């Protein structure tokens, strides 16, 4: 178990593509950190840099107290769960689990015990003699996890491990992951493109864009106080609305935009803004409304209303609670208030 520190890390590929630009990050010992961002933002590259599968163009990687920048993946004592699970197809589950131990010349009896313990913890004892091809997706995922756990590494690196699972299984797997982290207490670096996964799993969330970290903070902080428009838009679904600040009646420099989360909007007979309902999507527990503002710009706004919704064509007033306002500079996207 160890903390991971990335100092001024950069990676440019031979074909000229800049994957990581001047990145600093400190992951505490035992922390569960999620790297989240749109595809191409560099999160997987960052994970591979930590693993040693790519070499940085500049910067340092420190695991524990050791500068591992020049260390090969073999020497870093990390475990990685790949998106495809990368189970050895020609080995049994037992041999898959025990491969890392065998390579490190762990005593056979000790290794066998470790494998048995992990198999019991993950409830895969019945699968030990099967081959990966004979397993279901969920079973393979657990074996991949087991292979990582059994080595008792300094940290786990997980590359979108749930994205190949059925949505139904995903929620269950998420809970299992959280439980495992609580039990084992090992540092986890987790990559995903799903912002909902990031919010529910992470002790801290690092939102990435174009090779840099936009914001790293606990999930609720990222949700409640996004540091710029990109983070505000990326986190939370449906994503945040942006309207000129003047429409909401806020004193702000010209060009400033107010951010309104669909869930924060309330409808009433009176309010700050006037709008027409264009489309209602009933979602059972609540409804998603597509509204068009009665303003010079005729912006469209999404709102989520619990319970019954006004019909299409109705005219409504919108209110935005004062404590749920986000103000952004219209030009830079940075947060003003």
């Amino acid at each position, binding site marked *: 178990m160890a903390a991971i520190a990335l100092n001024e890390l950069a990676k440019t590929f031979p074909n000229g593509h800049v994957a990581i630009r001047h990145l600093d990050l400190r992951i505490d010992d035992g922390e569960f950190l999620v790297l989240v961002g749109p595809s191409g933002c560099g999160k997987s590259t960052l994970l591979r840099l930590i*693993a*040693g*599968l790519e070499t940085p163009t500049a910067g340092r990687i420190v695991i524990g107290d050791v500068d591992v920048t020049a260390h*090969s*993946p*073999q020497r*870093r004592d*990390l*475990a*990685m769960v*790949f998106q*495809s699970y*990368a189970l*050895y*197809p*020609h080995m049994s589950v037992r041999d898959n689990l025990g*491969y*890392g131990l065998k*390579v*490190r010349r762990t005593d056979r009896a000790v290794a066998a015990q470790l494998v048995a313990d992990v198999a019991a913890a993950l409830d895969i004892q019945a699968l030990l003699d099967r081959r990966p091809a004979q397993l279901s997706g969920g079973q393979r995922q657990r074996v991949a996890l087991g*292979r990582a756990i059994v*080595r008792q590494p300094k940290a786990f690196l997980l590359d979108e491990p749930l994205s190949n699972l059925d949505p139904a299984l995903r929620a269950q797997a998420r809970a299992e992951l959280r439980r495992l982290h609580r039990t084992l207490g090992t540092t986890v670096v987790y990559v995903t493109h799903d912002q909902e996964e990031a919010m529910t799993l992470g002790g801290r969330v690092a939102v990435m864009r174009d090779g840099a970290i936009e914001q790293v903070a606990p999930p609720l902080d990222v949700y409640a106080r996004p540091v710029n428009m990109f983070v505000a838009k990326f986190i939370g679904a449906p994503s945040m609305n942006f309207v000129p600040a003047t429409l909401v009646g806020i004193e702000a420099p010209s060009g400033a935009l107010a951010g309104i989360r669909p869930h924060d909007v309330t409808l009433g007979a009176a309010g700050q803004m006037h709008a027409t309902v264009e489309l209602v999507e009933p979602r059972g527990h609540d409804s998603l409304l597509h509204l068009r503002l009665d303003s010079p710009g005729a912006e469209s706004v999404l709102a989520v209303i619990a319970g019954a919704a006004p019909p299409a064509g109705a005219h409504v007033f919108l209110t935005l609670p004062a404590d749920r306002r986000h103000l952004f500079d219209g030009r830079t996207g940075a947060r003003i208030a």
Partner: protein
Amino acid sequence: MGAGARTLAHRSPIVSIRKVALAMAGALLLAALLFPICWMLAASLMPESRLFESRPLLPTAVTFEHYRALFDERDFLVPIRNSLLVSGLTTLVAVPVAALCAYALARLRMRGKGLVLACVLAISMFPQISIVPPLYLILRELRLLNTYPGLVLPYLTFSMPLGVWLLTGFFRQLPKDLEEAAMLDGATRMRALRDVVLPLAAPGIASTAILTFLYCWNEFLFALSFTLGPDRYTVPVAITLFRGRYQVPWGQVLAATVVATIPVALLVLACQRRIVAGLTVGATKG
């Protein structure tokens, strides 16, 4: 709806006519492919005199005379042994060496990779005849003419590039993350190669070995040029040099071709999937 059903109903007889026509064309093609081989077999079992009749289509009498003469008088087991040894030895040498090279070219970072592949390709494009004289002189100097190594060495000129070409294709097809997982598990590149890559590449290696063996077995020009006597002739050379006293002893020649074809046919029967895999990996790399 109704119009669709009507056109479908009208379509059925036309569709089946087309299918029958296709099947017949296919059958014709297959027959054309197989007929010469069947004829070769049939003719080898006909007595010599029958062969010279004007319509020797159906064998009336079956005789194994030619086969007997083949092994008794012409000692045909010797060329078979020679071919087996030379092809086998070449395959045993070429495939492992080529596999190591191919793995490096497919997976590892090195400058000049493209240059190496281009060189290998360019060298394999040289017409065989152009290197016969220098090779002949070199082999003569080394006293390797008319020996097994004296054929294996020239055979490496085409079996090495072939092996590298095919195996690079096969290695490229393997998923990368398996080796990466092994490395994170603590295995060195060599260890990962042994534990993870080679078992998975085994089918591809088998395909390469089979194709290499076949190419060696069929090779003619080098065997013709670098062997001097019947004790080292390979099968293709031995058959070609059959001489009768007055005319070509077709009966024995045909029997020899059948015998030469049997190992090949067995290999094809047993390993047709592997062979096809080998041919197509080399081709789709383009």
